[in-house]
């Protein structure tokens, strides 16, 4: 069983939890351990409770454990919230003067033999004659000491991170770090001494949002139009801040409707463009999705799911927008739905989305979730970029009726044949029609694209032992907790993981359903939306479902506990 360790760095929104958390994660990675880092934060700018938890090990890790070994907290609310989520034998380090644990928390600490260390970070900052606002770095130093890691690695990471920050007294920061590292409260035996990965410091840590932005650049995408909305906002940031190197047009639009219309306009003209949003913004894009379906104009939308309907739980995770991705946009037209789970498939699937969207001239929706959009995945390398396939072709009629359903598409260009792209139903030449036969012919032609597309859709990937008795079936980030759980249990478990959600391939599911294996649907929503799709497409109905919809992701323990039942 893999030895894994989890450190949670917590405090209030506005205390630099995000920045210091990222630094800590990368420093742990650079210390030779595969690291996964998961953020929790409130839907406010200052206050509430926020945290960054690093799970690390010699082996690959893709999910968080529910209970962390160390908890370092800069603020009272975070400390009380997370105390009862510490593993037995864990350590609490906090910097809150005369903090009082509740009875229930004290009881938990006692029962689980948790050590509590109070560290007056402000005093140490003063002693290291550094400004008080740098006090939070002190606790990082002490944590590093507990872990028994090389302080130079963390120091290097801090210097690297703030190297472009003007008017920052770097040496004062380092003095605080060392102050914490040398804090005299010795706790032995908590070091993490698993085998280090060789030259793992060259490995990368990036979120699905960042991987999608990079994948779009690899796919030759030249424009990004978006309206900010958690959890997809950071894609605007990555593409905006790198716009000088890429030359991309990065435009914050005045609404989601404007953003997706500008994407459709740019794709219609023959460049590559996309947008990203969350559930509420995607609802506003649905009419345009239907228009792209009817006009067979390529369209790529990233739907970063978050918990709940309405405004919901804006900064927490969930995967309850599959039905919307599959069905939104009035009328019947072909679409493709993909779902990524980590950084690697996010990087690849956005490129596939562009190729599919241009080849089949259909809207493609790539589903992500707050859980992968905003978590740091540790990867050795990004895979090689996927060959750009544009499938541009001149022809007689832009909407020629063909067997494959794909009509010739050439981009508007001086000297080329003009054509009419028409959101009214139309004949091969694009002219509006009300003639029944033409309407049926064109509707059937468009739908044939789904059959053609399905031929090139890969089967879901099977992970785990062939002879596994229990096979979890899911999409998105659920695979990550299952794969991590495989390394923490003797039990033989398998995971059938869908990246290509629609059109849906059924062979593997039906094969497994005939075997004696226990198939368990695993979804981060309340109604088992993927299960409904599988029932519809493959006539297989799950008898066992592991559904979680409390706005938290699946933790490794959730899988292990389920297996125990």
């Amino acid at each position: 069983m893999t030895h894994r360790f989890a450190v949670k760095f917590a405090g209030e929104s506005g205390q630099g939890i995000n920045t210091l958390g990222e630094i800590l994660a990368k420093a742990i990675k650079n210390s030779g351990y595969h690291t996964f880092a998961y953020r929790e934060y409130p839907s406010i700018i200052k206050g509430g409770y926020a945290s960054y938890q690093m799970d690390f090990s010699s082996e690959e890790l893709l999910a968080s454990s529910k209970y962390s070994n160390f908890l370092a907290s800069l603020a009272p609310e975070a400390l009380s919230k997370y105390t009862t989520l510490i593993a037995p034998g864990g350590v609490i380090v906090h910097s809150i003067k005369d903090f009082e644990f509740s009875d229930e928390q004290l009881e938990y600490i006692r029962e689980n033999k948790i050590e509590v260390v109070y560290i007056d970070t402000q005093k140490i900052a003063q002693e290291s004659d550094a400004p008080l606002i740098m006090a939070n770095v002190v606790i990082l130093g002490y944590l590093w000491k507990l872990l028994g890691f090389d302080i130079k690695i963390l120091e290097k990471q801090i210097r690297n991170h703030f190297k472009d920050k003007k008017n920052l007294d770097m040496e004062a920061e380092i003095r605080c770090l060392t102050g914490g590292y040398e804090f005299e409260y010795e706790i032995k035996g908590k070091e993490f001494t698993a085998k280090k990965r060789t030259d793992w410091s060259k490995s990368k840590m990036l979120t699905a949002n960042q991987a999608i932005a990079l994948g779009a650049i690899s796919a030759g995408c030249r424009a990004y139009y978006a309206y900010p909305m958690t959890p997809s906002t950071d894609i605007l940031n990555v593409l905006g801040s790198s716009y000088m190197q890429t030359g991309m047009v990065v435009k914050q639009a005045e609404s989601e409707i404007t953003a997706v219309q500008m994407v459709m306009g740019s794709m219609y003209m023959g460049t590559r463009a996309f947008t990203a949003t969350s559930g509420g913004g995607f609802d506003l894009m649905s009419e345009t999705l239907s228009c792209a379906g009817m006009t067979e104009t390529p369209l790529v939308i990233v739907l970063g799911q978050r918990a709940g309907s309405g405004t919901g739980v804006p900064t927490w995770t969930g995967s309850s927008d599959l039905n919307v991705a599959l069905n939104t946009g009035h009328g019947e037209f072909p679409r493709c739905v993909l779902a990524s789970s980590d950084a690697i498939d996010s990087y690849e699937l956005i490129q596939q989305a562009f190729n599919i969207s241009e080849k089949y001239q259909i809207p493609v929706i790539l589903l992500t979730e707050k859980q992968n959009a905003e978590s740091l995945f540790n990867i050795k390398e990004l895979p090689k970029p996927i060959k750009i396939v544009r499938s541009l072709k001149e022809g007689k009629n832009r909407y020629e009726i063909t067997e494959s359903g794909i009509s010739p598409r050439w981009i508007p260009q001086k000297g080329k044949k003009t054509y009419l792209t028409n959101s009214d139903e139309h004949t091969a030449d694009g002219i509006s029609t009300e003639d029944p036969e033409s309407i049926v012919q064109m509707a059937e032609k468009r739908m044939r694209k789904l059959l053609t597309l399905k031929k090139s859709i890969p089967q879901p990937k099977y992970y785990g032992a062939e002879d596994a008795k229990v096979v979890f079936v899911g999409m998105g980030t659920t695979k990550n907790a299952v794969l991590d759980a495989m390394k923490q249990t003797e039990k033989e478990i398998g995971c059938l993981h869908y990246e290509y959600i629609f059109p849906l391939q059924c062979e593997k599911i039906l094969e497994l359903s005939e075997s004696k294996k226990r198939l368990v649907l695993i979804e981060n929503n309340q109604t088992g939306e993927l299960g409904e799709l599988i029932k519809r497409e493959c006539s297989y109905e799950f008898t066992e479902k592991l559904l979680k919809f409390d706005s938290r992701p699946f933790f490794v323990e959730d899988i292990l506990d389920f297996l125990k039942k």
Partner: protein
Amino acid sequence: MGLSIENYNTKIKNTWCPGCGNFGIHIGLKQALVDLKISPSEVVITFDIGCNGNGVDDIDGYRFKGLHGRSIALACGSHLANRKMTVIADIGDGGCLHEGVEHLIHGIRSNYDITVLIHNNQNFALTTGQATATTKEGKKMYALPDGKPEGDINIGELVLSLNPTFFARAYSGDPKQLTEIVKKGIKHKGFSVIEIMQLCPTYNPQSNGQWFKDRIKETTPKSTISEAVKCVKDTESIYTGVIYQNISRVDFSSKLENRKRIKTELVQEVKQGNIKNILSKYQ
């Protein structure tokens, strides 16, 4: 080249009512393109949904008939993808001021280099004559037996309040003048808004040819926005011509630092991008 109006005419039977102002608008528009020696394959026209949008069958070029209220947003995305093409957004007063007013407002703010033709026939014509913001307050319309209970929007005042770089008014009954105005709008390097007072004998018979003839007065560009506002606020006469133009402000894409040294258009740049140096940030 020998470009003529013929190159822009299509074989498709036109569906507007006899006497509809849309005929005049298309004549003026086609002539403007011909005069500027722009061939159909160099023009992208986005159409809205309404009688104006049914003009899609009447004129050649790369045409996209999209959704109601969205032709301006569609045109902005098309323009940015290939600034070599002349991009025109065609829209009705209903689509422009109701469903899609955000696109007009932020198009002006961003100053994209496209030309917007607003067919102001003072009603939602295609859905059989409902009131719009340009229908006179108090006028009896569809489902308003006692007249429209709300105020109007003066397109000129709204546009001029947003520091635009080009606002003009034209009249469907004067295609010649319309041609000159459209030519100036297309040549203007920025967001050109052209409000076209459009005859609609079916649902707006009161504003007929005579009504307009009595009110339309040609004017010359005003040097300041406040003068232009005075001109458009005039209720007796309807001033036509380029009413305000500001050539000092640069169009959106010319302001983009990262595009200043790039000669190609986005449609020519779909190649695998280099992520090596960006990726280093994630180590």
